[in-house]
């Protein structure tokens, strides 16, 4: 893609400064929304664009907003800037280098949801970014782009930054809400969904940073233009995070539907040190570990195509494993992460992640047996479908797929052959 739509700072130096952002059409999307469109028209335009949530679930953004319980106020919008999935570092680049486009997107979403107070839930480790964001929100107030009577209308909006304190689970939207309410970040039982009873029990929209950053161009350039990028069911640009065993790791903004092969080899320069690619995780530590066959590498990275090969696009964080990587080690790493991050609310996740780590450690250390390989899979299967949120489910994805796709790695360890 010649032009960056989300990582626009790569084309325009200094875009993190408000005057530069304004010079390049900044806040024209919000101006158009607030002065020329009703909230419903904004929702309709976003629906028509086909924009799907970029946090992982891929749920259509406009549709999500339309579920807000009518007539109940105040409502809230919360931007999810809790980016914590291993392999994911896209929201951070937006917040760092194109922050005003994100803030404008958040304001557009707030207008569409008829919200007067929006929060940015920023992971605690993004301390410097959160400080910078607060300073930028001040700048917007000074320019009359936030606060009372926006663009001479009756619409008013405040944005506050709320800093998390180190908990992956708070990226899950209901855990995020509880955390923002000053409680432990643990997921809620649904229904009710946040659109009916979210923050402080009020109708709430939660969207990912990248999703919101799509909104200004959707409004200024229109849904029809937006749909010319990507595929029919997964329209628009997407930031793909490429990490692991690649020559050029980093963020790549490409149309949805670009193949894994193009990302890993053409953009990322392939695997270094004369090694061969062994496997990929398409969606960070939460995804299945797929053998890097030609069929997998030639799969288009859109929500439907990745689902069709038994995985998920998720947050599109592609981790590459080369042929030196032992899958018992990879599973040990992902299991350690999920065991640490399980919030403890649901027993299958809390206990299951503990035991998966325990067995993976045993196998990796060469102290396991063949029964342990089967036991690992059994424990994973018993977590599936039994937890309030997706974390438990996620923790099993790399485990079950690695055992199925790379059984030899596990059985070699079990037999003490390594």
């Amino acid at each position, binding site marked *: 893609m010649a032009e960056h739509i989300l990582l626009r700072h790569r084309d325009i130096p200094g875009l993190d400064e408000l005057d530069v952002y304004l010079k390049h059409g900044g806040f024209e999307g919000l101006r158009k929304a607030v002065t020329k469109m009703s909230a419903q028209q904004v929702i309709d335009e976003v629906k028509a664009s086909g924009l799907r949530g970029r946090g992982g679930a891929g749920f259509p953004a406009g549709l999500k907003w339309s579920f807000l319980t009518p007539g109940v106020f105040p409502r809230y919008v919360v931007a999810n800037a809790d980016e914590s999935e*291993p392999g994911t570092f896209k929201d951070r680049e937006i917040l760092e280098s194109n922050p005003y486009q994100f803030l404008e997107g958040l304001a557009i979403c707030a207008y569409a949801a008829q919200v007067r107070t929006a929060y940015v839930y920023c992971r605690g*480790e993004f301390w410097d970014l959160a400080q910078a964001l607060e300073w930028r929100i001040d700048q917007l107030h000074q320019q009359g782009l936030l606060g009372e009577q926006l663009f001479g209308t009756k619409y008013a909006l405040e944005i506050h930054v709320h800093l998390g*304190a180190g*908990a992956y689970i708070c990226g899950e939207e209901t855990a995020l809400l509880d955390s923002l309410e000053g409680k*432990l970040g643990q997921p809620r039982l649904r229904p009710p969904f946040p659109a009916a009873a979210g923050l402080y029990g009020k109708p709430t929209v939660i969207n990912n940073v990248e999703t919101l950053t799509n909104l200004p161009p959707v409004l200024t350039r229109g849904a029809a233009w937006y749909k010319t990028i990507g595929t029919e069911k997964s329209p628009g640009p997407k930031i793909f995070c490429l990490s*692991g065993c690649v020559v050029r790791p980093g963020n790549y903004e490409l149309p949805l539907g670009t193949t894994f092969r193009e990302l890993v080899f053409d953009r990322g320069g392939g695997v270094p040190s004369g090694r061969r690619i062994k496997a990929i995780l398409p969606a960070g530590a939460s995804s299945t570990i797929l053998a890097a066959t030609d069929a997998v590498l030639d799969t288009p990275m859109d929500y439907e195509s990745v689902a069709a090969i038994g995985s998920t696009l998720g947050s599109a*964080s592609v981790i590459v494993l080369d042929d030196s*990587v032992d899958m018992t080690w*990879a599973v040990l790493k992902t299991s350690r*992460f999920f065991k640490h991050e399980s919030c403890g609310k649901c027993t299958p996740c809390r206990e299951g992640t503990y035991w998966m780590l325990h067995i993976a450690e045993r196998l990796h250390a060469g102290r396991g047996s063949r029964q342990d390989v089967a036991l690992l899979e059994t424990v994973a299967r018993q977590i599936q479908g039994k937890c309030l949120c997706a974390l438990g489910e996620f923790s099993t994805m790399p485990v079950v797929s690695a055992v199925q796709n790379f059984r030899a790695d596990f059985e070699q360890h079990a037999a003490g052959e390594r």
Partner: protein
Amino acid sequence: MLAETYRSEIEAILAKYPPEHKRSAVMPLLYLAQRVYGHVPPQALDEIAALLDISSTQVGSLVGFYSLYYDRPGGKYRVQICTDLPCALRGAEAFARELCRRLGIELGGTTADGLITVEAVMCLAACDRAPMFQVQDAEGIHYHENQTVDSALALIEMLRQGVRRG
């Protein structure tokens, strides 16, 4: 003590949230307490609880739940290395081991001068620039990316000199 000395800062924090939901301020107030005391001592739990009309236990549970709050003192600077899967693929585990060896400590330990604690932590969203770590002190958190053991040691030396200069 917090309530009197930091009144205006506390008011600014509370102003972010609806008055009837001031419990939302517990996380920023815990950061404030940690800045003032270096960690979150029992006394701070009581102070925050009193400010928000919740129990000290409710405040304390958050300290245990969230990884960036500490209920006991550590090194003045916490060097927190991400060793999750993507970083480990770029040598973060070997980096952590070697850094600790050069500092003469175990992972999770603190240097003899009490200034530097080195810990392994979960993903910090900087996978493409590993080895990397964050340095957390009472004032905040800063990232350091594309590191070598030598560059990390040089940074640690700078932190130590800053302390000596006072």
